């Protein structure tokens, strides 16, 4: 099959074109070794089917960013049959800069002049015929959005792909023309493919080229000595870039005739920007939008209608029976979006999915298994191990998708770039750029989409640091742990206020994240703050089709994970909690005899400095088990509490005094555990802090693994989470129990900071 590669600037409509051409055949993967999306699909309307490869959006073919390297290596090494260069007609000059570089390769090229409709609408016009003449390759006017001109484009590309094209350069007429020509002849003599492209890059002093053609380099340097320019001196990179733009402005820009010459005129987009990035209003507006997104995704009381109008709950309306269940199916459906308050669309979708679809389906399937007459352990494995595992993972799907939908809208509309613009100043203090904000804030919803969103960060080290601290932004699933333990502290010890405790834990997570980023950026992930030179794309209405394509990609990705790594891990944990060391099957209530309990008792002393280790006596392992169960999904922590509290009561004959340990909020279960183990308040707070900052759930771990790409980075990330949570919890427990230990920690911190500063100074000296 013939292969056509799509190349072009970011925001030039490349994705839209790709989706229009390939439809449902698109396939997403990663380029080997890097986490940049690799997408391909099939176009079927040519004489024969053609494979379309979507190269990453790039501005240039410099050796500095992974995207540019991928595009460049793909064209040079994989030799596609034709390159379709998409050019944003509303931004001709900068887009043609990339075109001039692509033309230097020995590959057939067709230029797709996109967004011609927008150009015409503004009253401007572009002489495509003239452009074609000057470029020397076919130029086709298209609108990827309205799907016009696509057939003509593909037919032209198909025609071109049968020809052999030799690279051409706009630098020929520049002062550098001779030099490049000489180097090209030398390379051609060595039988190098794409001699012109390599010659230009060698003259540019491109690092990669210099390493590839070591033997030619001295000759190039010799050639260069004969050349001197007044303005640039010996800076050939600058010379080449300058020559390209000069050529473009004098030859290609004339192709465009503008209606008005005034570049400072306000467009619609500028007017929107006037408000959205306003000196005073910019940040408040952003906060309102952010709140709106979270409210629409997680809000259980939409627009606070329930509070404002004191709407009656289902119970008040008499629609629930004595067990608190809906009296009929109609009420069940009503309950998905109303109970004393109207629920947000996100919560509604979540309820429908989890209660009515996934819950019902696995309930039905579980019933079948139970009646099948299999051995109890097999039923347990299938029902509690596999089905519960799968449904736990699937239950993540709605919030992830809804959150992702909103963030895709922000991204596609062009507002995301403005957020980075507004917040960059604040984030630079921590060695990050303004773009790191979005993934972090998404972490409050769910770590999985947040980690995927780090792809917008250009710098690898910045990305790693961001992925590592995302779990510290306490996600929705961790909230029940916070409320249960905080509620139990208030109920059992009669101190504090549950809301204040919960809120402080959120703050703790943020502070930990900031401290860790600072630490990492000054030690293992050192590096200059990545440059922030970014296009602010024109605002436009997001395309429904593109949004759906995004969401579909994410769903596929996530479900694939759910049925592989996550499922396997769930089964392992299930087996550890349901078998004893001599491999007899255990009921839920016998969890204290399980392998996991055995291991937990063994490692219990490790958690002594955190307040939930040896000092809790022979039953203290329950907290360890709950924390381990939380590694599957943080929801499990509270579920495990209920199981363990029942089991503790059975073992110790503890009088629960009317505590409803299986209640959903888990407050009573925690109280029972406090009674049985005698854990202290600092111990409990340390326990929630540990759960918040340690290795997140399997879904997030699997995502981190995929996003970090590099195996050793991923392993160190796991170590980082363990160490961070251990240290944070230890500080909380010791300082909470003996206030004076704060001085020990302060001295230790001061020592650490001093060490880092000294080491960095030494390293800086060595460099000088």
């Amino acid at each position, binding site marked *: 099959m013939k292969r056509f590669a799509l190349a072009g600037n970011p925001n030039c409509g490349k994705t839209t074109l790709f989706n229009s051409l390939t439809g449902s055949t698109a396939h997403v993967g990663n380029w080997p070794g890097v986490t940049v999306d690799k997408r391909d699909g099939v176009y079927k309307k040519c004489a024969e089917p053609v494979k379309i490869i979507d190269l990453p959006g790039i*501005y*240039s073919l*410099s050796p*500095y960013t992974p995207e540019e390297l991928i595009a460049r290596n793909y064209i040079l090494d994989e030799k596609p049959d034709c390159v379709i260069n998409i050019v944003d007609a*509303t*931004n*001709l*000059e*900068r887009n043609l*800069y990339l075109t001039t570089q692509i033309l230097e390769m020995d590959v057939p090229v067709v230029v797709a002049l996109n967004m011609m409709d927008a150009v015409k609408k503004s009253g401007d016009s572009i002489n495509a015929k003239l452009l074609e003449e000057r470029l020397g390759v076919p130029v086709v006017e298209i609108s990827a959005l309205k799907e016009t001109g696509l057939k003509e484009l593909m037919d032209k590309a198909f025609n071109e792909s049968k020809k052999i094209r030799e690279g051409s350069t706009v630098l020929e007429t520049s002062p550098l023309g001779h030099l490049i020509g000489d180097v090209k002849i030398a390379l051609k003599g060595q039988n190098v493919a794409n001699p012109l492209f390599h010659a230009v890059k060698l003259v540019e002093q491109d690092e990669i080229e210099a390493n590839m053609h070591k033997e030619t380099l001295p000759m190039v340097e010799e050639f260069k000595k004969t050349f001197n320019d007044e*303005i640039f001196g010996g800076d050939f*990179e*600058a010379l080449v*870039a*300058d020559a390209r*733009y*000069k050529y473009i*402005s004098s030859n290609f820009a004339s192709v465009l005739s503008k209606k008005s010459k005034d*570049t*400072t005129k306000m467009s619609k987009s*500028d007017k929107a*920007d006037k408000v959205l*990035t*306003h*000196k*005073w209003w*910019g*940040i408040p507006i952003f906060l309102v939008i952010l709140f709106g997104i979270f409210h629409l995704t997680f809000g259980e009381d939409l627009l606070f209608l329930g509070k404002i109008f004191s709407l009656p709950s289902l119970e008040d309306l008499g629609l629930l029976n004595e067990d608190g269940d809906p009296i009929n199916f109609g009420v069940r459906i009503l309950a998905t979006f109303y109970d004393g308050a109207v629920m947000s669309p996100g919560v509604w979708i979540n309820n429908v999915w989890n209660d009515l679809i996934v819950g019902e389906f696995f309930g039905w399937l579980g019933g079948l298994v139970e009646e099948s007459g299999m051995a109890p352990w097999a039923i347990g494995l299938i029902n509690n191990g596999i089905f519960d595992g799968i449904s736990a993972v699937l239950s993540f799907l709605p919030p992830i998708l809804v959150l992702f939908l909103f963030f895709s809208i922000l991204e596609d509309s062009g507002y995301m*770039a403005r957020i980075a*613009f*507004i917040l*960059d*100043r*604040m984030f*630079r203090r921590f060695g990050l750029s*303004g773009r790191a904000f979005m993934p972090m804030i998404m972490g409050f919803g769910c770590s999985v989409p947040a980690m995927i969103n780090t792809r917008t960060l250009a710098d690898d080290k910045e990305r790693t640091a961001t992925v590592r601290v995302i779990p510290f932004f306490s996600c929705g699933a961790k909230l029940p742990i916070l409320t249960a333990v905080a509620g139990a502290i208030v109920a059992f010890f009669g101190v504090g206020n549950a809301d204040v405790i919960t809120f402080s834990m959120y703050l703790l997570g943020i502070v930990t994240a900031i401290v860790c980023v600072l630490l990492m950026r000054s030690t293992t992930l050192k590096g200059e703050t990545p*440059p*922030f*030179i*970014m*296009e*602010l*794309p*024109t605002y436009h209405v997001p395309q429904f089709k593109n949004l759906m394509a995004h969401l579909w990609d994410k769903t596929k990705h996530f479900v694939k994970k759910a049925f592989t790594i996550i499922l396997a891990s769930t089964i392992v944990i299930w087996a550890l909690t349901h078998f004893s060391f001599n491999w007899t099957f255990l009921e839920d209530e016998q969890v204290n005899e399980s392998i996991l309990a055995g291991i937990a008792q063994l490692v219990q002393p490790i958690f002594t400095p955190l307040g939930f280790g040896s000092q809790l006596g022979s039953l203290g392992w329950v907290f360890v088990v709950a924390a381990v169960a939380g590694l599957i999904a943080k929801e499990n922590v509270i579920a495990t509490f209920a199981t363990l509290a029942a089991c503790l009561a059975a073992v110790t004959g503890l009088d629960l005094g009317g505590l409803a340990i299986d209640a959903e909020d888990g407050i009573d279960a925690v109280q029972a555990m406090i009674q049985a183990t005698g854990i202290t308040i600092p111990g409990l707070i340390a326990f929630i802090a540990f759960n918040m900052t340690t290795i997140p759930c399997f879904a997030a771990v699997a995502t981190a693994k995929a996003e970090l790409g590099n195996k050793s980075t991923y392993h160190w990330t796991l170590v980082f989470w363990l160490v961070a949570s251990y240290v944070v919890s230890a500080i909380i427990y010791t300082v909470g129990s003996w206030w004076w230990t704060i001085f020990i920690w302060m001295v230790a911190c001061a020592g650490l900071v001093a060490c880092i500063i000294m080491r960095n100074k030494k390293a800086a000296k060595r460099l000088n």
Partner: protein
Amino acid sequence: MEKTLDNFSIGEKGIVKMVLGEGKIKRRLFDMGITPGAEVFLRKKAPLGDPIEITLRGYELTLRKTEAACVKVEVQS
């Protein structure tokens, strides 16, 4: 009058004279079209005064003041 781009105030216009700095950052500035002869217009500053937003070659570009300091511009009235 010649000054670096980070010292521009909102609404000022000029022609790029020279780009200093090195390696990655300079190359990026070039690739985005900040080359000698390009016309730039300072459109806006972020709420905290940094980064800045400029119009050049018909589009909007944002960059930090530290990066803008690499760009020498001849101010035009």
